[in-house]
Structure formats: structure tokens, C-alpha cells
């Protein structure tokens, strides 16, 4: 090679090299750990109280990173704020906490960053089924799960003993127990329900119903499938015979009712112990946890109720750094920090950890409740999906299906009305329905 060509080749190589360096400098480092080492600023919108310590720990490990953790509201308030920021095109965070049922709304809107490019898809085995499926669609990962809510039966053991009621293992036994309890003490009810979309969808989930399917922009809603019918057949007699306490969950009367024996049990997610320890303090020692009642003898199916994860917004200018934080908070040191503060894990390693499983809860009379909850997590029925507008759907539940709780409308008719309203809404939003 002549000297000239040699020099030209070198110059060409140097030019190509500097061009790629320049490009990476423009786009930011694509490697999360490199981004963390370089430093930067992150804004995180989350209401999860256990995250504060995680943020502190992360900042300590990465002194060049500054994180602003803001609580803009829980649940729907958060989603409204995030949606407003996305529509306005500015003012939004880099990372947002999203419950699993709200993921669809933001995924379909194209507002979330796909995390596969950072290697998120390799983490699938580290998370429990329900949460992992909640944060990914068709193999594309849009967030990492933080906590989960596998369901179980929380019951007032003292009250059960008083009225000689056996812990129900099937839903048939559960309905019979509800009847026995209310006859023995008309002031006591097995459970409360005034119409709760989250509860109803979780019940249908456990019954292996699949009312919501999304295929791109096609949305199918079938609130009359086999699983849904099972649930309405069980629940209707309870409503008709007034065996269900007319108390709304999360209200003051609800907390009072759990403590004074008006409400004898709850079928809800694994995050409930934290609420009970502070909100139903006078019930300490009375309550215990049992597996969720089953549809078949010896069955093991369960469902999830609630739980949330962290997602990176597409508009974020620090996506790689944000992802590094996500990993820290959900599978790294941050996960341990949160679990030690009482969060219920979504990671399989922690769900099977000896210390975690053997922990005795004073509130539940020393019972090792994590064993029950962890097993529930492993038995979650796979393949469930929510609607892309589930937050909206849940908000109109009481207007439609909720009628079954206050009038003579049957629950299955009420659910039919819910389906109709949702189909109309879907069409208005530009989806196609069958």
C-alpha cells in the first residue's frame, strides 16, 4: 500500500471512529451501567413509600446521579398526571410507577420505552408470572415489576372459632360458611362488597375466565364466558340473601368493620398485611391467612390483585440511566431494601427465600403468612390481560355492574351492561371490536 492510501485509510478509520463516538455522545450512552457511572438527573413519579430508602441507597452508590422522587398522587391521580404530562409533551418524569392494570393504557399510547434494548427480556425468569406478564406484551418489556398481590383468604380466626366455622377450601364451602356466620350473628358478614372492579376481575381471573383480549387495535370483551359465569353463579346468591356487608372497601367503616367483627374475611392481595397492621390495629392476633378458596377440590389456581412496577417513559432523555435504576430497585439491592420495609416481592428469588418464608407475623398470631402468599404467587393462572383502558373501565364499573348491588339487576346482567359501555367506549377511542 502506498503511503497516501495508508494515510487515507487511517484518516477514514479515524473519521468513522470519531463519528461513532460523536453519535454515542449525542444519543447518550446506551449501556445502563455506563450511564450510571457517568451520572445525570432522574425524575421519578411514584407513591410507593418504600422507594425513598432505595433512592438514597442508589445515590450513595452513584454519587454523580441526582434523583428527584415525587409523589404526585396514588393510582388514578398518578395516571392522570402522567397522561397530562405526555399530552403536553413536557413536565413528565423519566420513571413512573404504574399498576399492572394501567400498563395497557400507556403501552398502547406508545408512551413507554421498550426495555428489551437494555436486556430486560433476560430477566423474565427472575420474576413471578403474574407481575412479569403484567409488564410485558408479546415479548416486549415495558417495565420491571416492583411488588405483587397474589391473592389469599384473610380471615378472623377468633370469630370463626366462636361460631364454629371451618376455614373454607372451596368456594362452595365459602358460600356455606357465609350463610352459617350470618345466621349465627346477623351483624356479622363473611365479606364486604359494594362493587369493586378490581375484585371482580381478579375473581374471573382465578376462574380461568379471559374477558379481555387485545390484538393491536382490536379489543375483544366477553364478560359472559365460562369463567365469568362461574363467578356470577357463586356471587349472586350471596347478594340476593344479603350475606355480603354493604360496606365499601377502603372506607373508615371498612377499617372499623374489620376490627369489630362486622367483616369476618377478605379475599385480597398479599399487600393487605401492611394495611391491617396500621389500619386494623385492634384486630392484632385475631386474623390468619389461608389459601384462596378453590373452584375444584384440591385445586391450586390463584390470581393477582393489584401490584405495581416501574416504567421508563419514552420522552425521557436519560433512558439508560433510568433503566439502571429500575434494575437496582427491582432485582438488585433496592429490592432487598423494599422487602425489608414490608413490600411484598415480585421476584422469584425473594419469594422462595428461607428467611422470608419463615418470618413470623405477630399480627397474625405468629403465623408464617409468607408461606401461604408465596405459594399463591406460584399458582397464579397465566395468560391474563387487562384492557388498554382498564383505569377508565374500572371507573365506570359502579355505574353499570354496580347496579347489581343496589337494585334487582342480576350481576351477570350488570356485567353485560359494563361490557356494552366498554365496547362503545372502545369504538369511540378508535379501537375495533368483534
Amino acid at each position, binding site marked *: 500500500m502506498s503511503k497516501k492510501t495508508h494515510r487515507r485509510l487511517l484518516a477514514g478509520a479515524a473519521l468513522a471512529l470519531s463519528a461513532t463516538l460523536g453519535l454515542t455522545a449525542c444519543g447518550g450512552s446506551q449501556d445502563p451501567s455506563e450511564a450510571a457511572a457517568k451520572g445525570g438527573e432522574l425524575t421519578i413519579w411514584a*407513591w410507593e*413509600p418504600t422507594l425513598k430508602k432505595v433512592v438514597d441507597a442508589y445515590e450513595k452508590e452513584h454519587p454523580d446521579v441526582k434523583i428527584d422522587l*415525587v*409523589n*404526585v398522587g*396514588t*393510582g388514578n391521580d398518578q395516571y392522570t*398526571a402522567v397522561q397530562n404530562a405526555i399530552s*403536553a409533551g413536557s*413536565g413528565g418524569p423519566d420513571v413512573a410507577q404504574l399498576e399492572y392494570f394501567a400498563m395497557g393504557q400507556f403501552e398502547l399510547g406508545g408512551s413507554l420505552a421498550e426495555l428489551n434494548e437494555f436486556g430486560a427480556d433476560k430477566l423474565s425468569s427472575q420474576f413471578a408470572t403474574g407481575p412479569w406478564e403484567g409488564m410485558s406484551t408479546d415479548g416486549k418489556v415495558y417495565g420491571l415489576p416492583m*411488588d405483587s*398481590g397474589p391473592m389469599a383468604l384473610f380471615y378472623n380466626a377468633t370469630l370463626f372459632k366462636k361460631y364454629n366455622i371451618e376455614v373454607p377450601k372451596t368456594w362452595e364451602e365459602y358460600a356455606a360458611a357465609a350463610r352459617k356466620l350470618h345466621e349465627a350473628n346477623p351483624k356479622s358478614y363473611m365479606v364486604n362488597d359494594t362493587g369493586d372492579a378490581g375484585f371482580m376481575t381478579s375473581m374471573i381471573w382465578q376462574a380461568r375466565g379471559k374477558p379481555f383480549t387485545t390484538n393491536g387495535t382490536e379489543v375483544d370483551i366477553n364478560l359472559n364466558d365460562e369463567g365469568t359465569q362461574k363467578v356470577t353463579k357463586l356471587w349472586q346468591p350471596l347478594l340476593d340473601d344479603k350475606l355480603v356487608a354493604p360496606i365499601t372497601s*377502603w372506607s*373508615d367503616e371498612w*377499617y*372499623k368493620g374489620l*376490627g*369489630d367483627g362486622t367483616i369476618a374475611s377478605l379475599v385480597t*392481595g398479599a*399487600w*393487605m398485611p*401492611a*394495611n391491617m397492621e*396500621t*389500619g*386494623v*390495629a*385492634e384486630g392484632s392476633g385475631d386474623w390468619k391467612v389461608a389459601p384462596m378458596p378453590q373452584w375444584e377440590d384440591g385445586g391450586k389456581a390463584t390470581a393477582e390483585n*393489584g401490584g405495581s412496577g416501574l416504567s421508563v417513559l419514552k420522552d425521557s432523555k436519560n433512558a439508560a440511566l433510568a433503566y439502571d435504576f429500575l434494575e437496582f430497585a427491582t432485582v438488585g439491592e433496592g429490592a432487598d431494601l423494599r422487602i425489608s420495609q*414490608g*413490600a*411484598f416481592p415480585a421476584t422469584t428469588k425473594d419469594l422462595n427465600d428461607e428467611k422470608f418464608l419463615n418470618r413470623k407475623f405477630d399480627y397474625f398470631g405468629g403465623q408464617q403468612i409468607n408461606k401461604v402468599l408465596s405459594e399463591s404467587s406460584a399458582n397464579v393462572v397465566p395468560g391474563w390481560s387487562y384492557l388498554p383502558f382498564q383505569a377508565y373501565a374500572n371507573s365506570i364499573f359502579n355505574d353499570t355492574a354496580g347496579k347489581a348491588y343496589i337494585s334487582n339487576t342480576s350481576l351477570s346482567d350488570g356485567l353485560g351492561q359494563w361490557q356494552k359501555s366498554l365496547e362503545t367506549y372502545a369504538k369511540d377511542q378508535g379501537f375495533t371490536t368483534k
Partner: protein
Amino acid sequence: MAITTLRPATTRGRGKLETPSQPKRNLLLTIVTGIVLVYSLIPLIWLLINSTKSQADLFSTFGLWFGHDFNFFDNLTRALSYDNGIFLRWLGNTLLYVVVGAGGATLLAVLGGYALAKFEFPGKKAVFAIVIGAVAVPGTALAVPTFWMFSRLSLTDTPWAIIIPSLISPFGLYLMWSFAKDSIPSDLMEAARIDGASEFRTFWQVCLPLLAPGTVTVLLFSMVATWNNFFLPLIMLRDSDWFPLTLGLNQWNSQAATAGGQAIFDLVLMGSLLTIIPLIIAFLFLQRYWQSGLSAGGVKE
């Protein structure tokens, strides 16, 4: 000067002498006033009693009497130190909004009311009509348009989003106009001007002291409105570091409605008690001005 004849106090044949300083007792009125008093005081008493209870006692003991333990001071220290003392930060925020917002509103209302009452200028009737019209519009109807406006100015989620709207008080302006009209004799102002005082000096040294009762009334009104303001901060603020006490207590309360959240009803009650104390103190100290301010304009001089 007219000679007035004193009319002898009559006894009306019922025994007790009725004089202006000792009005006749009216049983019905006393009972009705008593009922209103009880109705007004019961929530206060309930708050006082229940702020001494622990979380467990709140749901299991009688509402109008004390619980098993007396947890007042424990609740107090916990409320002030919870979440790194965020309550004190919220208190500081509220004081900021009230001092700057309500104080500023009073100042503007006094200046505006004085000008409307004592000066003639073109368009005065139009200004007056707009102000009275504005009083009729409820604050909640304006909250969302105000949000959009501030969003364009990138002022949302800052203290200015609370302070600037608080500076506008049409009701205060109307009150001061009415009060200034009746309490400042025009002759006094003329005399001051003839003596060579500038307009500002006339206002500051001659008229302002006369306006004191009305000023205090407007100040109290604005203080209460800004201290209790919930809807405006709810719309404008995202960062809980800038919350006023109303919004902060609401956030504490909604912790109980969060999956896996820590219910802190006892701190909410203690925080509520602490929140109303400054207002009560302000009212007790300034109530004589309140009384005289309300009756202003009732008697022509």
C-alpha cells in the same frame, strides 16, 4: 342644636325594666342560639378528644369520650416528625401563602376600595360592575381555566401558582369600597390636601387609620380563605414539598386507601387540630375589629 327629651324607660307591665343596655330575655332565641352553639362546637370537641386517641382506639371507642390511653403528646411528636418533619414544611408553606397571598390581597383590596370610593374617574361604573360580577362567579368554576393559563406560563407546581390567584379578592374589594365610602369623610381629605399633603400621604396617614376595622375584616376573610384553600392547590401543585396543610393532610389520609399503605388516621386528626389552632387564635385576638368592621356602613355619619 335640637333639644331632645329623654323618654322614661317603660316597664311594659312585666316587672323587669327594659333598657337599651339590658334587652329583655327571650327564651326561644336563647334555645335556638344554644342549639347553633352546640352544633358548631361539637366537631371541635370531637377533634380535641379524638386527637388524644391511638389508632386502635379511634375505631373501637366511643366518639365523644376519651379512649383507653391518653396519647396526645405521642401523637403530637409523631405528627411533627413523620416523614422527616414534612408537616412543618407544609405549615411553612401555608404561612407563606397566607402572609404573601392574603396580606397582598388585603393591601390590594384596601387600595382598590379606597380609590373606588373616594375618587371619580372615567369607567368607574364599569370597573365596579365587573368586580361585583366577579364576586358571583364561584372559585371552582375558575380553577381549571386558571390552571391552563398558568400552565402556559410554566408557573404550575410553583408557589406562585397559589400566591398570584390568592391576591385577587373581589369580595374584599367590595367590602373595602363599602367601608371606605362611609368611614372617611371627604372633608377630611380636602383638609389634608389643602394643608399640602400628597395623595399618598393623605391615604397613608389620614385615611388608613380610619379604615382599620374594614382592613382587619378583609384580612381575616382572606386569611381564612387562603388557609383553607384546597381546590386551587390540588389543581396547581404536583410536588408534595409545596403542599399547604390542607393538601398535605389529604395525602396522609389517603395513605389508608392505598394498597400496602400505612394508615395514619391518628396523625391526620392531630394534624387537623394543629391546622385550625392558628386561625382560632387569629380570630380571638382580632374579633373586636371583626365586629366593628361588619357593622360598618350600617349607620350614616
